[in-house]
């Protein structure tokens, strides 16, 4: 265990966070001004952290690769954010949110972290409302809630179908206020390319100006990574085009451990793939499962005719429809967790009941909800999602059931952090989707926004002080040191190496190949032979990449292809690590489904005796095998049991 000190405070689970806060080291106001913090990323986690740290008095340098912090990937989140307010008086509580999250994550997360998350969830809503986030309200003027998968209560707060946008704009506005106040220096279109470590501590970054291609050095007393998720390793995903693993990977290569890389989430309700030119997949929010019913035909002949385009879904009579989620999981029905819903869709399609031309799609039908509540009510609730669907598919969901299929959406894995959100490199913190901390092997809907904002507003601004309190004697330092020289030289050499390959294959064509391998072997279901094969194929592709990639233009210039190539080089390495992680985990849990380990009813079969741990991988050198470290997970407040949503 050595390397992995989770630093969970003593005491009863409900007291740990308070106990930590009341005994941790703090930095006095005069010293805060003398301490610099780099925050890379301006999504929910990064913007909220940068704003909050600056409000406390720290000097913050904030980075994003987009032209404005407001365009971070978090802006796309649709459905909502959880909190244990119990405003609906339906029996919710901090403990229940904690319980649902640990259970939803299939018992592969740390109890203490999750409890803290549930505890601060309420403050997030309070703060966001005070910022002017226009959450949806009831007629009486109070906040409205909806339900999301994996819960029996309505605890999800939402702003139409644009919750992520509104929460991010709230954080962006707070960030803007601190920029104006001179406490944050904002560096948009500035992409991190390396971490600088001095005497074992994170002390700065090397970043590349996206417009000029020039490299710049930045120093600070601590570095916070808030760079989001790596789903684009699959090429097609619901993430933004620029979402990447590179910043995290640079830290991994510098000694930060990478935890549970194989835990990725496949979202059940996305618009299916339609052509090989396709560049991304579009999510249809989970909130639709509140009113939409998922089904496929009962009869194979009907499925065949749907696949041929001879009939439409609306023509199939009620008695010939198989509402397979309601059938298999009567207690949770259409609101089972994402991993369960995704696998069930795949199972039906594999069995030949798919409903579109590729046979890889199921229906999400609003007919009954429209009959019950009226078309206007349904459109008012989901209007923007319906429009988005219609723009892409040319079909109106009020007339024909939506066609949906699972797609890559989120990663639970990420940089390993302790209770204080610090990685294994002192002074390097990781928050939001880039860390592994709270969702175990499967994330519940509306919990990523909660976690990003919990980390950024309410956890990191405290825990980072426990570290910074020891740095108050360290003066601001220059960047003309050998450590910065070396870190910059590493980047320069890598970029030169990339551009000088001068081959024939475009970055996207190689990235698509990686995506196919990932989806085929490390996607919704995995097995030993496939994982071994995936690693081999990715290694071959990696060789092809480094000998045949074609990148136009120059290094010191605006060069989007070079950015993409750099990210792909890291995705290739990540893909190999994911295969390795998935292979070593000989059990099924949450989003990680190993075909060899399933119950008779085809549900995921965990192995708590051998695998109730976090797998954290250590980089040991470019051509060497990474080393596995295990952080055992113990469950003191929740009884470990097989998830059952029936």
């Amino acid at each position, binding site marked *: 265990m050595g390397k992995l000190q989770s630093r969970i405070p003593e005491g009863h689970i409900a007291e740990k966070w308070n106990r930590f806060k009341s005994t941790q080291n703090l930095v006095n106001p005069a010293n805060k001004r003398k301490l610099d913090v780099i925050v890379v990323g301006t999504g929910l986690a990064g913007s*909220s952290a940068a*704003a909050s740290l600056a*409000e406390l008095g720290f000097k913050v340098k904030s980075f994003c690769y*987009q*032209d*404005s912090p*407001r*365009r971070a*990937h978090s*802006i*796309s989140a649709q459905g909502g954010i959880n909190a244990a307010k119990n405003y609906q008086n339906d029996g919710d509580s901090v403990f229940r949110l904690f319980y649902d999250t640990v259970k939803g994550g299939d018992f592969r997360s740390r109890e203490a972290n999750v409890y803290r998350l549930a505890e601060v969830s309420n*403050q997030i809503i*309070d*703060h*966001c*409302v*005070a*910022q*002017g986030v*226009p*959450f949806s*309200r009831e*007629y009486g*003027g109070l*906040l409205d809630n909806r339900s999301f998968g994996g819960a029996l209560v309505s605890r999800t707060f939402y*702003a139409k179908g644009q919750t992520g*946008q*509104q929460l991010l*704009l709230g954080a962006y*506005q*707070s960030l*803007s*206020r601190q*920029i*104006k106040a001179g406490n944050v220096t904002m560096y*948009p279109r500035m992409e991190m390319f390396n971490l600088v470590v001095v005497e074992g501590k994170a002390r700065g970054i090397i970043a590349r100006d996206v417009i000029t291609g020039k490299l710049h050095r930045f120093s600070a007393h601590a570095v916070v990574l808030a760079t989001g998720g790596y789903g684009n390793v699959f090429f097609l995903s619901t993430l*933004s*085009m*620029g979402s990447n693993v590179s910043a995290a990977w640079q830290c991994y290569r510098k000694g930060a451990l990478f935890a549970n890389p194989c835990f990725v989430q496949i979202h059940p309700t996305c618009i299916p793939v339609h*052509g090989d*030119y*396709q*560049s*991304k997949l*579009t*999510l249809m929010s989970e909130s639709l499962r509140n009113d939409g019913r998922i089904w496929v035909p009962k009869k194979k002949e009907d499925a065949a005719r749907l696949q041929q385009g001879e009939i439409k879904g609306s023509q199939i009579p009620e008695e010939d429809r198989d509402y397979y989620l309601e059938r298999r999981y009567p207690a949770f029905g259409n609101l089972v967790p994402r991993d369960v819903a995704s696998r069930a869709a795949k199972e039906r399609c594999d069995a030949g009941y798919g409903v579109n031309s590729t046979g890889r799609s199921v229906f999400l039908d609003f007919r009954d909800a429209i009959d019950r509540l009226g078309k206007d009510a349904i459109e008012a609730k989901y209007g923007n999602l319906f429009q*988005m669907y219609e*723009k*892409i598919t*040319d079909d109106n969901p009020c007339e024909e059931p939506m066609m949906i299929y699972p797609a890559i959406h989120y990663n639970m894995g990420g940089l390993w952090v302790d209770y204080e959100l610090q990685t294994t490199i002192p002074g390097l913190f990781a928050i939001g989707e880039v860390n592994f901390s709270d969702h175990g092997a499967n994330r519940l809907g509306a919990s990523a926004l909660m976690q990003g904002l919990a980390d950024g*507003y*309410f956890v990191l601004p405290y825990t980072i002080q426990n570290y910074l309190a020891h740095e108050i004697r360290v003066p601001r330092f220059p960047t003309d040191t050998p450590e910065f020289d070396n870190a910059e030289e590493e980047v320069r050499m890598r970029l030169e190496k990339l551009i000088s390959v001068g081959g024939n294959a*475009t970055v*996207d064509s190689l990235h698509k190949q990686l995506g196919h391998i990932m989806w085929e072997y490390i996607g919704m279901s995995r097995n030993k032979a496939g994982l071994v094969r995936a690693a081999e194929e990715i290694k071959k592709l990696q060789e092809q990449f480094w000998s045949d990639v*074609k990148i*136009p*233009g120059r290094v010191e210039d*605006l060069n*989007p*292809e070079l950015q993409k190539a750099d990210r792909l080089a890291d995705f290739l390495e990540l893909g190999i690590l994911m295969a390795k992680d998935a292979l070593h985990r000989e059990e099924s849990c949450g989003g990680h489904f190993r075909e060899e380990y399933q119950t008779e009813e085809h549900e995921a079969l965990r192995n708590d005796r051998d695998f109730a741990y976090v797998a954290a991988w250590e980089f040991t050198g470019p051509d060497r095998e990474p080393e596995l470290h295990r952080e055992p997970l113990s469950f003191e407040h929740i009884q470990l049991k097989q998830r059952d949503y029936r």
Partner: protein
Amino acid sequence: MDLKLKIWRQKDSRSRGRFVNYFLREIDPDCSFLEMLDILNEQLISRNEEPVVFDHECREGICGSCSIYINGRPHGPDELTTVCQLHMRKFNHGDTIVIEPWRARSFPVIRDLMVDRSSFDTLIREGGYISVNTGTAPDANTIPVNRDDAVFAMDAAACIGCGACVAACKNASAMLFVGAKISHLASLPQGRVEARKRVQDMVAMMDALGFGNCTNTGACEVECPKGIKMANIVRLNREYLKSTL
């Protein structure tokens, strides 16, 4: 479908740009506009030509990155649609499509179709927020908000900051963008406290940044991909007037 593209190519803000013609064959009508440009870029790279540079990120119509003038209209021919959500089925086989960057004094061209919209961030920094520090807020349900006000606030807050309104306006005015933020915050009780200073500061900065005046042509409303209404400009004017009284 086969297409002829006339695309604006410009090296940087100091260089002069020009239209260059490209031909694309057999484009699938289900492909999005940006995917069509991806296909073009793949071909250009293979031919050792420079790919066309454009901003894009979410490809879901929400981040506001994409910003292209198509056949004389910001975001192209489809109503309430960003470029990334525009699909090629809206065009016909044999069409010529004219593709340009936003053109406005306050949005200098960086390269090809990519422009610098940092002036929008500068505007928000002038008060497009509510001054509340983390951890100091009362319970969220302490202040009920009239549902109509909440809906109005949400509709205004739906602005994605793409800049189509400025690009569409013959005066390159930012009144719709600023109006949306002013009315989002002014229609909530939390935002009233600073309403006066906010409107004064944001309007002053709008002038300082070189955005033009509003002459009520309504082009912004027509072109806004998120349906932000002129009512927000009315609200801005009203708030401004109130603040001077």
